Structures are given as structure tokens and as C-alpha cells.
């Protein structure tokens, strides 16, 4: 079995999904959350964080390329396996009970698709958005804090959309984190599993941390 056949086998594709997902989780979602938390500590800290991030451009671009590769692999394999699974179980039952399948597991292709849609909206709103300048320690820096504030203030609908998308992130992660471990061969038991519980709490924690920023910005 050569490498291509290995990676395109059913388990190989799961490994690709798990690896690309884990890369996005560790190198994008966690650092991004860490940065966002600084928003809660006011304009100076947040703007100086954004300013320093711009100085790390080579690293940032490296990570961005890795993200682009990961999300492409993730989406292509996700679409491919979801399609194959629909076909493999295409003859539907008239009545089918389920006792184990979680809501998060059922919604994986949908929550994933929503994350993708969100990434597009999000980049359009904040990355490729005209930013004004402000003064920080006698230097002129981009007012990223002010941009976030102005985007959310007075726009309850917009805040709602963000929270809605963060629910999708939470749902996706709560199944994904523990599922990736089982895919790598770490036994995740069916019931009473600490890994499953941890996966759920990390997902809830991250989704609510992301969601709290638009709420705070709106209330400021």
C-alpha cells in the first residue's frame, strides 16, 4: 500500500481530517482566542498586541499558508467522506431509532459549512477592512480596538449573527476533539468518558470566549 492509497483509504481520510482539524485548532483557534481575550483589557493592550502581531509578519504569513492548506484539505476530505457516507447509507429506514449519536455528531457537515461561511465573512469584516490610526506610546498604530468596537456597537443583529456562528464552532469542536483522538487510536469510551466530557467543556469554553467579545463591545 503506497502513501496515496494509505491516505485515501477510509481510515487515511479520517486521519487527514483529524490532522488538518487539529492544526487549525492548535495553530489558529487557540492563539486567536488568546489574542481576542486581550480585547477585554482595553484599547492600549489590544492595539499593541495587534501592532506587535504585524511585526511578526513572516510567521503570520507562514501560519496563514498552513491554515489555507489545512482548511482546503479539511473541506475536500469532509465533502468527499460525507458524500460517500450518504451513498453508503442511502437506502433509508422508515423508522430509525438512535441511542448514541449526539446532536453535534449529526450536524458536523453543517457546523463545518457554517464555520467556513463565517471565516469568509469574518475576514471581509476585519482583515480586509479600512482601519483608522490612533496614538500609542507616541507611535501611530492601527486602531484595531476601535474598529471592533464600531463594528458591533449599535448593531444587535450583527452581534446575534456572531453568537450564532460561535454556536456552530462549539458544536463542531465538541464532537471533533474527541473524535480526532479516537481516529488516532486513543480509545474514547462510549459512556462516562472523561475525554468526551473534556472535549465538550473545551468547546463550550472556547465558543463562549469568542462570543463574549461582540457582547462586551456592544455593551461598551
Amino acid at each position, binding site marked *: 500500500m503506497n502513501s496515496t492509497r494509505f491516505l485515501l483509504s*477510509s481510515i487515511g481520510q479520517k486521519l487527514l481530517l483529524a490532522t488538518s482539524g487539529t492544526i487549525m485548532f492548535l495553530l489558529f483557534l487557540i492563539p486567536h482566542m488568546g489574542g481576542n481575550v486581550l480585547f477585554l483589557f482595553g484599547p492600549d493592550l489590544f492595539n499593541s498586541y495587534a501592532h506587535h502581531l504585524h511585526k511578526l509578519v513572516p510567521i503570520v504569513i507562514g501560519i496563514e499558508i498552513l491554515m489555507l492548506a489545512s482548511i482546503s484539505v479539511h473541506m475536500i476530505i469532509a465533502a468527499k467522506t460525507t458524500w460517500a*457516507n450518504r*451513498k*453508503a447509507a442511502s437506502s433509508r429506514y422508515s*423508522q*430509525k431509532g438512535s*441511542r*448514541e*449519536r449526539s446532536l453535534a455528531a449529526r450536524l458536523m457537515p453543517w457546523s463545518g459549512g457554517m464555520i467556513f461561511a463565517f471565516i469568509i465573512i469574518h475576514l471581509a469584516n476585519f482583515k480586509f477592512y479600512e482601519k483608522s490610526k490612533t496614538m500609542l506610546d507616541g507611535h501611530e498604530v492601527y486602531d484595531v480596538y476601535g474598529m471592533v468596537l464600531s463594528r458591533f456597537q449599535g448593531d444587535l443583529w450583527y452581534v446575534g449573527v456572531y453568537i450564532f456562528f460561535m454556536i456552530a464552532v462549539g458544536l463542531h469542536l465538541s464532537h471533533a476533539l474527541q473524535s480526532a483522538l479516537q481516529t488516532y*487510536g486513543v480509545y474514547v469510551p462510549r459512556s462516562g468518558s472523561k475525554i468526551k466530557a473534556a472535549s465538550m467543556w473545551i468547546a463550550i469554553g472556547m465558543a463562549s470566549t469568542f462570543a463574549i467579545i461582540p457582547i462586551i463591545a456592544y455593551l461598551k
Partner: protein
Amino acid sequence: MADKKINLTLNVWRQQAGQEGAFETYKAENIDTNASFLEMLDVVNENLTCSGKEPIAFEHDCREGICGSCGALVAGMTHGSHDRTTLCQLHMRSFEDGDELTIEPFRADAFPVIKDLIVDRSALDEIVASGGYVSVKTGSAPEASTIPIEKNFADSAMDAAACIGCGACVAACPNGAAMLFTSAKVSQFALLPQGAPERASRVKEMVDTMDKLGFGNCSNEYECAVACPKGIDVKHIARLNREFIASRTRKKK
């Protein structure tokens, strides 16, 4: 045990090979609650035959939960909703008088319907034929204690070997995947020294065959383990994944 009789309404899937199927409704009357589910179907079939109709085709052999022949979806659950029970070992005392039950064949792309509740599960045999064996010299049985095996390994291998190949895991899986079955068949050898020589080639061949036969991809939803009448656990799927990854680095046969 007190004799109790119940009446049921059955919506049963009827289908001839290559034709469209449909549900038909039958009455199952005066059913002894000590009867098994298959015995209840025997009674219904007896009446169908007497009134000149075609009896419901279903597969069965041992009727004691060890051969893996029987199986159907009863009220949405494979082998009915009793834990760790095959359809032949499901008893009518699990039902109430007046219950209405939908009975359908196991469905998956890889399991075409042969007739009524009988599906072609030979895809599972093909997976086994592609690597689910050990190559040994035949002859008189060797002395059992010549190969020492740690008890917990022997126990785990025995648990995996409990799989009777009924296909309920595939039927219950929202992806029509055969991972629980294949993981049991790989694990029972991966855990034992006798399985060591063919360890890498076995898992590669069996996963390859499984993929080619049109089974879906596992998404770790664990419906299979709930459905399994033999209590095969998802730890064997984790082992299958490990075996598959390790097969990249293990020496070729």
C-alpha cells in the same frame, strides 16, 4: 411462568429481489409471550401460508444467538431494542398487547435485499477472506499452553472473537460503515502471538476490502456499539486505527 397471550400489528417490509418493496400490514394474534420474535413470525407465516399467501422471508439458523444469521430492524432498532440480544433471543414478553411494530431489513449500500427481510451480507465474508485468518499448519491440535498469553490479552481477544458477523453494526451506522465488524476481526488476531506474522498485511488488506465494497467512513458516532448483540466495544475500533497506522512502519510480509 404464567402463560400470557398478546396481539400485535406488524408493518413488514416485503420485497422481491430487483423489484421495489413496500410495507404490508399483518395481525399477529394470540402470541405467547414466552415465544421468541422469530417464533412469533413463524406463527404469522403459518397463517399466511394457510390463506394462500407468500410467507415472510427471514434468515435464521441456530435460534440461540450464536450464528449471526438472524436480524432485522424492529421499531427502529437492530435486533429490537433489548441490549446484547439477537432477534432470535428477543422474546415477546418485551412487548405489550396492542403494540404496532415496523419490521424492516438491515439496510446499507453494501447489503442488497435478497427478499423481504433477507439481505446479502456476503460483503462481510469478503472482508474476512481478505485477511481475517492466521496461516497455520493443520494437523493435530497443539498443546494449549505451549504459547503463553497474558490473561488480559486473551480476554480482550476473546471479547473481539464474540462477533457473530450479523451486520447489525453496519445496519445501525448512519454512514453504513463496517468498522466495528472489521475491528473485531482484526483485533482477535492482533492481540495474540499467533496473529503476529500477518499483522501488518492483515489490517491493510481488510481495510482495503472494506473500502472497496462500498461501506461508509466511520465518524465515531458509536451507534454500532449500541446495536451489537455481542457487546463488541469501540475500543476495538481504536485498535483497528492504531493497527492501520502502525502497518505503515511494520515490516512487510
